[in-house]
């Protein structure tokens, strides 16, 4: 089984920064009191990158930039060869707001007057494209989009890029935003848990396996694998499995959030299992510390 070392992680979420997120999790003071559709505060990004360069960057990509920069800083590594650094992003719905904005522009103004900028920012790889541009990542840039299993698919690609020696490091992320217009179009399909929707980004800097670091690996299953410490997400939340949705809400980045929690709080080994609705297959991410 392929595995990699987690060298750094960063997170931004409706609940707040990674510091707040982990602190709240520790205290569990937010349990069952999640605020509906809280928007992520991305104002801190202007302290990390020049404000003028961010002028046309949508919130979706700003969330990704904040989490990615934190993961890189957290790793505290010398600046890697940019041609050997890859980027892999898992996103269920990509830039949902820009996508809906583009459709609004067609519906309100007609196709002839629809917004080309909104279209170019509505394509699924907009987030990864902008991140590679801002972070000067040149060793390949991949976007995986398969709803709740997007992060698992992204991890699979990241592990392959490292194992094949195409990259020395891979910045792996999960990134999704809320849009009320999108949610009201398909509320039943999007409501994976009884809890309100949340949004955010989780990034990890992965490197080839080295001792004394948290290890991440992935396996695919059609039944829930057995392990001592399992956390479930996606369509598994409603079947009485242990899950964290009451803490972080309903989100397609749930498996990545579980992974971050396992890296931060986990003991020896945690299995983060996720299943997409109406799909038998599930992905199990193993974190070993």
């Amino acid at each position, binding site marked *: 089984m392929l595995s990699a070392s987690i060298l750094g992680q960063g997170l931004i979420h409706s609940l707040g920064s990674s510091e707040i997120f982990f602190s709240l999790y520790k205290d569990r003071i937010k349990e069952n009191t999640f605020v509906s559709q809280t928007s992520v505060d991305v104002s801190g990004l202007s302290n990390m990158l020049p404000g003028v360069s961010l002028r046309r960057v949508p919130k979706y990509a700003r969330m990704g930039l904040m989490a990615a920069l934190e993961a890189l800083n957290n790793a505290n590594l010398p600046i890697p060869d940019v041609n050997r650094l890859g980027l892999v992003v898992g996103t269920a719905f990509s830039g949902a707001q820009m996508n809906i904005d583009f459709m609004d522009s067609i519906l309100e103004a007609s196709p002839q007057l*629809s917004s*080309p900028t909104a*279209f*170019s920012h509505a394509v699924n790889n907009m987030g990864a494209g902008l991140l590679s*541009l801002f972070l000067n990542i040149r060793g390949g840039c991949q976007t995986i*989009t398969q*709803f709740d299993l997007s992060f698992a698919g992204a991890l699979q690609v990241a592990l392959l890029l490292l194992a094949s020696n*195409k990259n020395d490091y891979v910045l792996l992320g999960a990134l999704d935003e809320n849009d009320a217009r999108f949610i009201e179009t*398909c509320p039943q399909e999007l409501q994976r848990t009884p809890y309100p929707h949340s949004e955010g980004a989780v990034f990890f800097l992965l490197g080839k396996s080295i001792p004394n670091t948290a290890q991440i690996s992935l396996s695919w299953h059609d039944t829930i694998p057995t392990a001592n410490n399992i956390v479930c997400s996606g369509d598994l939340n409603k079947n009485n499995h242990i899950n964290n949705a009451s803490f972080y809400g309903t989100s397609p980045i749930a498996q990545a959030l579980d992974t971050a929690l396992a890296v931060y709080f986990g003991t020896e080994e945690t299995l983060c299992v996720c299943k997409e609705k109406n799909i038998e297959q599930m992905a199990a991410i193993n974190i070993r510390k």
Partner: protein
Amino acid sequence: MKAPVAVTGMASISAAGIDMQSIWATLTTGSNTLSHPSILHKDTLAYPFFAAPIFSNGRRDSACDTFNLARLAMLAALKDASLDVSAQKTGIVLGTTAGSALHFIEAYAQSRALRIHNDENNNGENTTFQGNSSSQLQSPLSQPHDADDYFKANLALHLGQSFNIKGPTITLANACTSGADAIGIGMELLRQNECDYVICGGADALSLVPHTGFARLMVYDEKHCRPFDANRAGLNLGEGAAIMVLERIETALARKAPIHGLISGYGSGSDAHHFTAPHPEARGLLHAFESALSDAGLESSQLAFINAHGTATQENDKIEGAFFHKHLPEIPVWASKAITGHTLGAAGALEAIFSLLALQKNSVPKSYGFTEIDPKILLSPTLAHTEISKKYALSTSLGFGGGNAALIVSTDTSAFI
């Protein structure tokens, strides 16, 4: 050099045809016609496109059209490979540009109309729609399955489920490099022993939203596109699906599977320059190319030809053409999008299949649409059918977001068979 993998099944659906014989005939005769965009939707802008010849019974105008394209190609590829994947250690890697996200407007229009209706009733305000050409879209005309289509049309997840595939499942959405990336990632799944078989490729059907988007970017030719030509005026969109069955060579030999060719190398590079424009020195493409060449253990002199991305947009062709002229001046360049249009997420996979076909035939077709060298590029793609004897071809893809992918395909099986 890393081990190549065998292509034991391949199938594609595009305006070029649906079987290899008719596809080769179309590629070599250039006999193809553009379709009127009104067959996509009555409100489409007046830019013609290359339609996939499978929607005679009508379109869903949803992501299910992409799903159905991919499913038909996958059925044909599996039949070609004589493979039942359900009991095997199989993975699936499929690329798409529009994915589900850009085929959602009917469902959204219905929801939006309801929201506006409710707002009017709640606020007592007389909110009216602006414009009139898309008024039909704003009425609650959607069928109840529209939103559901969105969630049933994720290519790898749902096709994997349809075919009982239980291994690694990856839907790539890297814009126009998606199909090539899917094949490259599929090859790595085999090299790293994550699977014994991989279904990979790409698919995209067109509908109002992606067609409108590309038209509004002002990169669309109203007539037949002219890749690399001095008078090119933009792309023609197309739609299609291209699927390969890959396996390790020893697996293919053990089960006496037909080997159509090999995937020998893959590279990917990001421009990190501009979101929609390629880097002026094509640095991402250079990285992808060098990585693919190293992956295959080749020298560039071993390449028989290049199948270029060649969209016929000003920027793509200027940068890509200048790159070939500078780095690979002796190698014939074939641009095939005047036959199929730009099939977006399918393009990289479709052109990998075209490249294998050309290697099998020892002939590179003429680049239709090209007549006059652009002095800013100085590249002349193939002006006539060209005989070749070498066994390797490079296929390049460039995409939104600064992505670049390079695939090296081969028919050099002499060392293995």
